[in-house]
């Protein structure tokens, strides 16, 4: 059963320093405002390619970037947040979405298949989940810390399961993180399968944990699992917008961004959080305004 509270540990936020918590929040804000600006640019027809927005799941990426630093990264579409959280160049991603040659993949990758060479993030060809075997092969060849993210639908690809099963056989230093929004486009998980990712992962011989997308909870488990790689973290989250495009089917089941702000209020850090949010909003808006103005500039 999906839950915004799954695995919650009371008082966990207090176990992290204020600096760490605010760092995570800043990454969440940047990703969130980036996606809101991308949404607007898409609606204004400034973006003319399919887009896969990560709005709603940014807490996971922000927490990963802080608790699992400097891995090689294999992700797929809906990964703008991950790219930004790990320090990808925001303007290069803006330009990529605007189909400019100055984009991070020169316009070849778009929203679905961009990459991040500066942060060790490999591109994806967008065939659902095929970056997982590629990540496993990479970890086998490099024997260095590797992060492989996927969605709950990708987990059903036969080749994903085959590759995940091979990782413990070779004791690979890889962390699989499933962003489980419960949807394959609009088909719910319960319609598609009767098994859980963590159960399969455990059967393969890996450590596996299923939790909700509370960033402190994510950091807590990532820190633990990092010592037991390969491992799997399945995280319930909510996709606020459509699978592709900028539309919405109504209010999200939960809003982790607001829940994190509520937690900051409880911790007495509301002012700091507010300042970070405001600053991020302005900064990100500036990126988009500049890039769009340059795009429409007459030659």
């Amino acid at each position, binding site marked *: 059963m999906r839950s915004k509270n799954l695995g919650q540990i009371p008082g966990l936020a207090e176990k992290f320093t204020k600096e760490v918590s605010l760092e995570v929040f800043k990454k969440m804000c940047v990703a969130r405002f980036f996606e809101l600006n991308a949404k607007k640019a898409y609606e204004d027809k400034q973006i003319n390619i399919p887009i896969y927005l990560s709005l709603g799941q940014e807490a996971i990426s922000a927490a990963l970037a802080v608790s699992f630093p400097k891995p090689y990264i294999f992700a797929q579409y809906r990964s703008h947040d991950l790219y930004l959280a790990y320090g990808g160049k925001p303007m290069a991603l803006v330009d990529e979405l605007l189909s400019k040659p100055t984009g991070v993949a020169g316009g070849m*990758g778009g929203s679905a298949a961009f990459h991040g060479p500066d942060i060790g993030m490999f591109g994806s060809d967008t065939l659902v989940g095929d970056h997982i075997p590629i990540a496993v092969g990479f970890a086998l060849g490099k024997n260095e810390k590797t992060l492989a993210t996927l969605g709950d639908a990708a987990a059903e690809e036969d080749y994903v399961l085959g590759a995940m099963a091979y990782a413990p056989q070779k004791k690979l230093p890889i962390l699989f993180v499933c962003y489980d929004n419960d949807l394959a486009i609009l088909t719910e998980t319960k319609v598609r399968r009767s098994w859980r990712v963590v159960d399969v992962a455990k059967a393969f011989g890996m450590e596996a944990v299923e939790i909700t997308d509370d960033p402190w909870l994510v950091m807590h488990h990532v820190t633990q699992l990092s010592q037991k790689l390969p491992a799997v973290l399945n995280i319930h989250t909510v996709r606020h917008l459509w699978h592709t495009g900028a539309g919405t089917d109504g209010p999200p089941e939960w809003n982790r961004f607001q829940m994190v702000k509520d937690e900051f209020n409880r911790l007495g850090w509301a002012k700091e959080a507010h300042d970070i949010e405001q600053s991020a909003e302005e900064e990100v808006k500036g990126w988009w305004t500049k890039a769009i103005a340059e795009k429409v500039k007459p030659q």
Partner: protein
Amino acid sequence: MTSAEKIREITRKHLAEGGVALGQCLTAVGWVGGTVPELTEADGLIELSIADVSNGGEAVGLALAGRRPIYIVRYQGFLWYNAAMIVNYAAKSKAVWGVPCPIFLRAIGMIGSGPVTGGSQHSLLTRMPGIAVCAPMTPGEYEKAWDYFMAHDDPVCVSEHRFAWPIDYEMPDSINERADITLLAISATRLNAIVAQKTLAADGITCNVIHLFWLKPFVLTDIIKKAVCSSKYGGIVLDGDFEGGVVKTIAFDIAQGTGVRMEVLALEERTAGYAPQLDNVPPTPEKICAYVRQLIKTADSDKVKP
């Protein structure tokens, strides 16, 4: 040195230099026909699980990690599963992201053996931009394929044939300035073309035999042009893959480049069975000879029609 020994030697050297070779059941009896050195995973010889589709992706990942993998697919029919990520990722990686993804794909063909594993299936790989495809049969050609791979950063599909393994000689083109027809042969059909050439010579029919090494990119050389243009009855391209595959692409390129009508002989457009009478094998010498004789007969009878 045989082709099998050459492949083993190349692999051993590559592993000693930090490369890897991977595949399923490599250490089984025979070590893939003696083409794989008897080494261990510590040496870089990686045994994969039987997850065919995943395995192709793992080869791609090893390439991204800079290990220049030799990926061994023991039957070309298995390419349909094993090649998915090689054609969709490795072949596109440089174009999309500027990131090279060099894989040396050893796809091993054979004759017969039922509806799936038998025959060559290299046409599948020729359909995607960004990957080179060749079909070596001799030790020298195998070395040429390897040298190309190491000098470039693209994935290369090597359509290898079990019939190549015992070959310990080179196979130069055989060209006669006044030939009746030119046979352009791919992979194991080259052996049959040579036999057919001898048989037809006894009938007074002179054949050129040109050995096609590169399937993609296919280069229409002056040698091919000259041989085809000077042949009285044009040319036939022979292949052990299906007749609707790359054999027709090559025949088309030659026809376009020479203005000469080209024919193809390859696996028939039907599914093979295990029973010998239901098999679907590459054109035999007898079939090639019969086809050539009929071609000549038809062309000559057309000439005398009013």
